[in-house]
């Protein structure tokens, strides 16, 4: 099959959605001539014109608001927040407006919008350009939260998100944009709310999100050499969360490690652990359920510090090995 980068896969998804449906448009900072800070929309201005690829002033709250207003009145906007960090400026709009209006108005309004944004560290951009805030949105009923972990997932999940009649927070990862993978040319959808088992194994269940999926898979390769088989599970949509495959996996392995880049304290890992610990998998647990997550610090600029601030292949190997060997 044809290989595309994650960024190209997203662009193809956007192009196909916009071609198929004139209600779909893009809005954000520097998405036109510049092509987006990470190049995702490169060329789309030329294809669709400035009316549908809308460059905005630097006003994130109103980018979100513009999406909400347009979605309420029949359009299907795709907003771009240049770095996930800046979504902090849109919290009122996304949480008190986008997520609430449907319920608050008695189930009669709908807000079919996607807000895309790149999260994560690893580019030396320091504390204000490296946030991983997905769990904030997971904590907000009314929003859906998607985190594609590779190029194939990116396109399929983006098309499904654009189809969805709810506000979807679509979190890309800076380090994935240039990674390649097989991507079918035709439009395809990966339904929101379906957890994927990315690798089967019988010793330890590793639940990983976004860039951590490939790190977990790399760790699994390593450990396979030692005879330890990881089962790597990727929720793909953090909300709604399809926990059945996670629970089934833990029932099989009896051991679970949850890996994410966001800081551990108050993070999404807690949700996963709590789902496991209150499920029927509880009785099958042979070891404590462990989390491996970002350190509880802002992301440092210095390369080596930045590297050590979040889980890497080695640390996943180390943690999973300990779990498998009963060292917890």
């Amino acid at each position: 099959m044809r290989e595309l980068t994650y960024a190209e896969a997203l662009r193809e998804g956007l192009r196909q959605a916009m071609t198929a449906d004139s209600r779909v448009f893009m809005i954000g900072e520097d998405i036109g001539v510049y092509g987006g800070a990470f190049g995702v929309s490169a060329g789309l201005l030329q294809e669709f014109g400035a009316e549908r690829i809308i460059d905005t002033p630097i006003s994130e709250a109103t980018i979100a608001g513009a999406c909400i207003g347009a979605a309420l009145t029949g359009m299907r906007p795709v907003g771009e927040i240049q770095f996930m960090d800046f979504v902090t400026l849109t919290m009122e709009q996304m949480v008190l407006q986008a997520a609430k209006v449907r319920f608050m108005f008695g189930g009669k309004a709908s807000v079919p919008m996607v807000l895309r944004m790149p999260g994560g560290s690893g580019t030396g951009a320091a504390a204000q350009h490296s946030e991983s805030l997905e769990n904030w949105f997971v904590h907000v009923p009314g929003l859906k939260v998607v985190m594609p972990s590779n190029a194939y997932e990116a396109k399929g999940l983006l098309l499904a998100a654009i189809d969805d009649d709810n506000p979807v927070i679509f979190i890309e990862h800076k380090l994935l944009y240039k990674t390649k993978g097989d991507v079918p040319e035709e439009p395809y959808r990966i339904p929101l709310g379906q957890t994927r088992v990315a690798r089967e194994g019988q010793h330890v269940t590793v639940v990983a999100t976004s860039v951590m999926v490939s790190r977990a898979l790399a760790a699994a390769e390593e450990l396979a050499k030692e005879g330890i088989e990881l089962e790597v599970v990727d929720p793909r949509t953090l909300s709604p969360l399809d926990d059945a495959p996670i629970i089934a996996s833990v029932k099989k392995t009896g051991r679970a490690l949850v890996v994410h880049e966001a800081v551990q304290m108050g993070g999404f890992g807690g949700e996963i652990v709590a789902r496991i610990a209150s499920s029927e998998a509880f009785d099958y647990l042979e070891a404590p359920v462990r989390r491996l997550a970002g350190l509880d610090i802002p992301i440092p600029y210095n390369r080596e510090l930045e590297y050590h601030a979040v889980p890497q292949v080695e640390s996943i190997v180390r943690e999973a090995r300990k779990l498998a060997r009963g060292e917890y």
Partner: protein
Amino acid sequence: MVASGQLQPEVIQRYHEVIESLGPEVLKQMLQDMHTIRAFEERAEQLYSLGKVHGTMHLSIGQEATAVGASGALRDGDYLLNHHRGHGHCLSWGSTPERMMAEFLGREAGYCRGRGGSMHIADMESNNLGANGIVAGGVPLAVGVGLSIKMRKTDQVCIVIFGDGASNEGAFHESMNMASIWNLPVIYLCENNQYAMSMPFPKAFNIKHVSERAPGYGIPGVTVDGNDPLDVYLAISDAAARARRGEGPSLVESVTYRYKGHSKSDRQAYRSRDEVAEWMEQRDPIKRFSSLLVAGGILDQAGADGMRETAMGIIDRAVEFSEASPMPDVSTILEGVYA
């Protein structure tokens, strides 16, 4: 316009014209609507005291002229983004007192199935996109509604209503600028009722009028007498015409006054009784418009007096309807979060 002091001859002329062009029936209906709004809110307040309505509410008593003047200048199909002090706007936009009151009473038949309450009346069917509990919360949405109109190439306009207090939120600034650079069909209507909760206008602004901010976005800004429905009507008509011509947004500041406390827990220590009394006596929008219509021979005194009763009757029926209608069933509690 009237608020700016002396009346210029052209203004008087336009005023005469608008009276002519609207005709007696519309003018009478405007007055009737103002009565209905007031009666509705007075009853809501009473039901609140009786414990039948809970939560909080923000009454617009004293501000009815702005609601009636503004929606009177707009068309079916236009969009409304409303704010927390928005009962009057809903009613003049066409929401029924029945379903509004049912919402206040938390009933399934309310506009929001009892989930929203007084602060969140919305009616998607009439393009009433909802009142907002967040100060300036609806203001950024106006950009999206404007964009959507532009992309769908209709001649709709969007009016977004907010208070003087809301004009100091960042959202005001961002939204106004974006609507301006893209020439969106949006009318920004600021109801300047002199206070944001306990904050008097002069303490929160170093300018005389909110409309002075319009030039900073390259758009027209006017200040009108918000207690005169015709002055509001004229300004909104102008803004709507401009918007429909594709010339972009306008800022209209309507100067008015709220008689009641900010919400249900306000002791009003921040203003004097005299000040309130003066507005009620000298500038009450209903009294003034009533006198105008009587003086102009459009209405006789009996007709004017009857309107209050008509309004009370409408509200009686709304309350009856609401009290007779069922509460939501707890088993439905999870409904409506996701589409």
